[in-house]
């Protein structure tokens, strides 16, 4: 195909078709690269393997970071109440602080962490998709 096109260009000697030919060639080459990256993923070449490893590592790091937030935010409470009993006697609006923290505040906190995770995990996946579909960036 690419060998035939120069023949047409040389016989007609018209510049515009030559220009369009370059654009076409570029698009074709871009597609081939994206397909090659997809194929690399499917065939588990070293490049594809590295891409997937990167994604898995990013998602795991995200999950572990947010678990740490929960482990400190909620998991620290029993220990905190144990070493600082005066905290348990503190009242807010007539209700003791531990009751408010555990019975009410913990649920919006968990939902907030979950919401952040869904957003960030989807962003990681989007980054991965962009990387695979536009390898030149």
């Amino acid at each position, binding site marked *: 195909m690419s060998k035939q096109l120069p023949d047409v260009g040389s016989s007609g000697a018209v510049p515009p078709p030559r220009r369009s030919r370059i654009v076409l060639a570029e698009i074709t080459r871009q597609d081939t690269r994206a397909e090659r990256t997809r194929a690399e993923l499917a065939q588990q070449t070293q490049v594809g393997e590295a891409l997937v490893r990167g994604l898995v590592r990013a998602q795991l790091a995200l999950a572990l970071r947010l678990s740490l937030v929960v482990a400190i935010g*909620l998991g620290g409470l029993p220990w905190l109440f144990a070493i600082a009993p005066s905290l348990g006697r503190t009242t807010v609006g007539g209700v003791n602080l531990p009751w408010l923290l*555990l019975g009410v505040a913990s649920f919006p906190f968990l939902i907030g962490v979950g919401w952040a995770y*869904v957003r960030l995990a989807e962003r990681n*996946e989007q980054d991965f998709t962009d990387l695979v579909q536009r390898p030149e960036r």
Partner: protein
Amino acid sequence: MGNDFVVPAIVAVTLVTVGIGFYGLRLARTTSDFLVASRAISPTWNAAAIGGEYLSAASFLGIAGLVLKYGVDVLWYPVGFAAGYLALLLFVAAPLRRSGAFTLPDFCELRLGSRRLRILATAFVIFIGWLYLVPQLQGAGLTLATVAGSPYPLGALLVAAVVTANVALGGMRAITFVQAFQYWLKLTALAVPVIFLALQWQADGRPAVTPPDGPTFRAATTVVVEHRATLTLPDGDIREVRPGDELTFAAGDPVPDVSGVATDANDWLLPSAAGDDDRGLFATYSLILATFLGTMGLPHVLVRFYTNPDGAAARRTTLVVLALVGAFYLLPTLYGVLGRIYTPQLLLSGQTDAVVVLLPEAALGDGLAGRLLAALVAAGAFAAFLSTSSGLLTSVAGVISTDVLGRGSVRGFRLATVIAGGVPAVLSLHVSGLDVSQVVGLAFAVAASSFCPLLVLGIWWRGLTDVGATAGVVAGGGAAIGAVLVTVLGPPLSGWPATLIAQPAAWTVPLAFTVMVAVSMATRRRAPADIAATMLRLHTPEALRM
């Protein structure tokens, strides 16, 4: 109990459950429809169904009962039950959906290609499923006995029969609608009465939850003791009471101290402090670990993820579930707190699990409003038994039909349902003395020590081998099952052994993870050859599928 609205309300819930089941049956045409609802369920419906399935007898009745009895320390139950969905979201939801596994044994085979591990996982699914089903049926028996005066076996067998028939005839599509409906019913059944209870509490002049002289009876009360206990009367006398003993108190009498119950205001109101009891702190952390990590290993929870169209939808569904479940868990605590004021006799009788169903009439009197609200709460409680039992039964029947009977047909599934429902029904008749919340807690501990490490390491660690996974499940899950058996069948323990056995997760979960990692590293050569393809499938977005 002379409430003539309760039985019609329970009958109505049961009929609607069966009715929606038949509506679903008309929609279910193919085997695929029947088993996994053709994956055509919207995230909102699916999330409500997951929430409806998850909020069990332990959530609806047990938490309020525990709060009434023990106070602030047991608030970790609702927090942990909700946080379990966050752990599921962070580590399991999307990859599990992408794996295409329908059940936990499916996941084992997909990830590690081991038949032996699949059989082991099947055994654990059935064990956890039955361990969780028995207290649901038991709760049904106790509730019907409390509110309608029926004999205990009636409620248990009624729920077992309705659920078995419904699952066998309608399959998954039917229970998706049933359970979405039941989530909203359960939320309404606790939320509406709470408004009336709060107004009544205002009208009564905001009586203190922890009066300085300890709780008192608001009206003349006769208590029939259900569990053996030691009472310390206000004048310092100590009295042993046995089941069947009747105690009479006049209005304004103080509630005697009951052994094993936080009657003292400070014990109930304040978290356990360091120094005086490290076992309390250990038990709290053990409970946190079991509930945070156990949810992902419950068989009826995972089955639901297959009904999402893709990994991203699985994630969003889980987030909606977390919000729905979190909203629900705000309510049972209020029942436990108000129970301190209006139903202190439950502390003496030992029937604290009944606080949710008895509170409306105790606080509002047996006028029309009180009776209607009591009927609503009883209906919600039955929705809890029916929906959780349906979900458990579907997943246990699913693994029995595919892994034990070896048939994927609709007829095989129906036969499996009858087997899966019959065994816990028989068991529930023999264990009426077991504590509902504790058995549910143990089911979480077993799930957290077996399937949680298997899923987390299987999804995130390439080095997991079939031998390592098997060894970890046998060590951690086996230790947790041992703790369950000692609790249920063994002699009463005291001191550290009692704590380690009653709340085993803090040592069985690390044990399972350690054994799984160590044995996998020792058998590195057995890691599956197709691990790269599996990781690609688990973690890459569906849009890139070739």
